[in-house]
């Protein structure tokens, strides 16, 4: 394992993890989020076998993850933190400050972007956060390059004492490529924190000095040879050039070759989009009449090119500002830029299938109960699988991690002087509650917000692939940790109404939520913990309960109630919607639907 080996199929995230391990990272922290989740899992897979001194952990949120790994680098270790782009928003407070203070050991921040977006609230560009923080950022084009860049990032970090961002995108994170594992450098875990309060605890006066030093540092980083742009086709001659970074580079390589422009269209790959190399900016503007810039998602490279008249990109609307830059888009842009013609077939705009909660998902049962208990309520919700409660019309708002509770409070305050106040029911997952829900719940107690909070406690972080929560009591590497008890935490926030129920017990759970709604109308915040493990998790552990076989009897008149209010993929409309049937390939046998049909047509088989 320590020696370099032959080619292995590696997902981009696994390649990044391998890069961390090869380069002596001794502390890796993260909070899961698509498309970054597999990075820490892969570090844990290899790291724990390799060297027990390596600290690998899922943190309660990205800010905490960042601060732990940052302190590790303050102690002189090589450390890393990984997250998705919106996670970096949560960690932006320490990011901005850490940029000023700099690092002692090497520190790599991996923030994975999601152009598209495929599984995110926004298409925001983490490179802009690097620019705002004034730290360098590297933008890999493939799993192979992502691994290489980890090594470059550590050297860059240690040369300039700065945090370095590695910004992969979904198409790098979730690609697989044949990658050659390199040699693993032995771990050096010799913490040596050198006290320096004027730096590590700088007051505003010293921060000014740190800011001056940071600007000077950035100027030198813009001249750093190891991250220079790469001229991909140095034999190409022409007055027009193409500049790209990230996976857009990979598409551009293929498109320029396919268009037979490899010798006519000079093409540069930017590895470090910020700070863009000063000499490179000069070279482009002195050499070419026209420059096409292809990057995802914001015009970061482009905005650093001063002479706008010669630049074609997002700022002047030549390159789309929204959505992923797909290979077909890039081919069309290149052909137009070079003045050659090409035929690009377009894909049919077929709608595709919307995602849905799994058959047997306990969240569906919870949502069904909530709608029965508070039929005309306002339903605030949060980030996770349960966002899909949308399909059951049991989710009205989704803003960001933890917002279900604070938004419920906001709706309460908005309506509190009205004669008829709507019931307000917030839903949040267990992991999200720990991540950002707790401060909002404290606030709701403090303000006596009349709302119901249903914590959908499926004992895992399901959407991102079943990472542990603080209540799981398991570490990323499988060791036993201290469990944080959710009931105690909720009570500790000052909540006086707390019930715990199993949403699979349909009628009992509806009664429980009704009691909570009644309490919330007169007294204050009420919390219900809907506790039932994620069925995917149970299946993975081989703990699936015996299925309850169900059938639809002749009493079904096709009213569609079950589809509208329960929306289980195991119940399908047949005979042009005249009837409902059970799809045995999909049904998970949870039996919750036995209480759903108003005609009593769903029965045990």
């Amino acid at each position, binding site marked *: 394992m320590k020696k370099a080996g032959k080619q292995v199929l590696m997902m981009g995230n696994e390649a990044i993890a391998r890069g961390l391990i090869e380069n002596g990272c001794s502390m890796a922290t993260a909070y899961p989020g698509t498309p970054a989740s597999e990075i820490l899992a892969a570090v844990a897979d290899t790291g724990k076998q390799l060297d027990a001194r390596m600290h690998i952990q899922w943190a309660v949120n990205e800010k905490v993850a960042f601060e732990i790994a940052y302190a590790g680098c303050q102690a002189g270790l090589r450390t890393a933190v990984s997250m998705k782009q919106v996670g970096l928003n949560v960690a932006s407070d320490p990011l901005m400050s850490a940029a000023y203070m700099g690092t002692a050991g090497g520190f790599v921040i991996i923030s994975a972007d999601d152009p598209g977006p*495929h599984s995110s609230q926004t298409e925001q560009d983490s490179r802009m956060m690097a620019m705002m923080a004034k730290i360098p950022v590297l933008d890999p084009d493939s799993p192979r390059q992502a691994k290489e860049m980890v090594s470059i990032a550590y050297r860059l970090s240690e040369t300039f004492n700065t945090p370095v961002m590695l910004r992969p995108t979904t198409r790098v994170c979730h690609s697989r490529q044949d990658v050659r594992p390199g040699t693993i450098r032995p771990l050096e875990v010799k913490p040596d924190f050198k006290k320096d309060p004027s730096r590590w605890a700088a007051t505003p006066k010293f921060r000014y000095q740190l800011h001056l030093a940071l600007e000077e540092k950035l100027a030198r980083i813009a001249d750093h040879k190891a991250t220079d742009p790469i001229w991909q086709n140095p034999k190409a001659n022409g007055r027009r050039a193409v500049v790209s970074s990230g996976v857009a580079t990979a598409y551009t390589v293929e498109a320029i070759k396919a268009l037979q422009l490899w010798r006519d269209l000079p093409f540069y790959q930017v590895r470090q989009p910020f700070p863009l190399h000063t000499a490179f900016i000069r070279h482009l503007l002195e050499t070419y009449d026209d420059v096409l810039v292809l990057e995802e998602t914001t015009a970061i490279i482009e905005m650093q090119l001063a002479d706008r008249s010669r630049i074609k990109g997002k700022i002047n609307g030549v390159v789309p500002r929204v959505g992923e830059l797909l290979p077909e888009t890039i081919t069309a842009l290149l052909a137009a830029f070079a003045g050659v013609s090409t035929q690009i077939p377009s894909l049919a705009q077929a709608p595709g299938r919307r995602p849905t909660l799994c058959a047997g998902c306990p969240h569906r049962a919870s949502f069904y109960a909530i709608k029965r208990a508070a039929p005309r309520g306002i339903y605030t919700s949060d980030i996770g699988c349960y966002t899909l409660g949308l399909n059951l019309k049991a989710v009205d708002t989704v803003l960001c991690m933890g917002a279900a509770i604070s938004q419920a409070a906001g709706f309460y305050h908005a309506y509190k002087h009205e004669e008829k106040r709507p019931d307000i029911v917030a839903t949040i997952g267990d992991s999200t509650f720990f991540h950002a829900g707790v401060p909002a719940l404290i606030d709701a107690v403090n303000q006596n917000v009349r709302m119901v909070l249903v914590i959908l406690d499926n004992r895992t972080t399901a959407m991102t692939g079943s990472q542990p929560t603080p209540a799981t009591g398991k570490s990323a590497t499988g060791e036993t940790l201290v469990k944080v008890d959710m009931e105690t935490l909720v009570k500790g926030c000052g909540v006086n109404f707390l019930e715990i129920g199993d949403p699979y017990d349909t009628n009992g759970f509806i009664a429980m939520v009704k009691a909570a709604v009644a309490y919330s109308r007169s007294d204050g915040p009420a919390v219900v913990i809907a506790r039932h493990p994620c069925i995917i998790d149970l299946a993975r552990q081989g703990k699936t309960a015996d299925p309850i076989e169900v059938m639809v009897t002749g009493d079904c008149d096709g009213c569609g109630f079950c589809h509208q209010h329960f929306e289980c993929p195991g119940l399908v409309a047949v005979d042009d919607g005249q009837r409902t049937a059970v799809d045995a390939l999909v049904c998970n046998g949870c039996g919750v639907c036995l209480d759903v049909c108003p005609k009593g047509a769903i029965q045990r088989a």
Partner: protein
Amino acid sequence: MKAAPTYQIVISGVGGQGVLFITRLLAEAAILKGLPVFTSETHGMAQRGGTVISHLKIGDFASPLISPGKADGLIALKAESLDQHGGYLKSGGWAVINGHAPLAIKGTTSLYYLDADQQAREIDDPRSVNLIMLGFALASARRGAFGHDGLYCSPHDVEAVLEIRLKRKNHRQKSSLRALKAGAESVPTA
């Protein structure tokens, strides 16, 4: 020297069907043969029953995505994928489809249908549609259905990958091999 052959294959279906798993098997089979591989996968929310698509590129490629009109083949675990993803196929490309004829794609001559849902019921393994379709695709290629280049790997190569990947999961390995075989044996002997 003749350039090494390349293969671009789109695999699609819905979350939970195991699109990722068979993409992985095909990619690992390429690695075992020493061929360069690129895949692109769908992760995240779509995996909860939404449309899932994988791109698989074997040969000298720089990027993970297939451009519309360039795919050699399509493995569709849901018949509805044809409308959505048929546009990736090159003219004359092949598609294996979980469903019944006569679904069609313009300009594509080689369409192969198998009711894999029914097959899965027959072998009493409702989650095996993906492997049945993979076995069917590989065996169709062996019979020369996809033109002289066929595919870069055989059912046997994928069996070898399954044996490595599911080494410690005896039961799953057995059921996977059985599903792959059931799919392969569904190819009509013309």
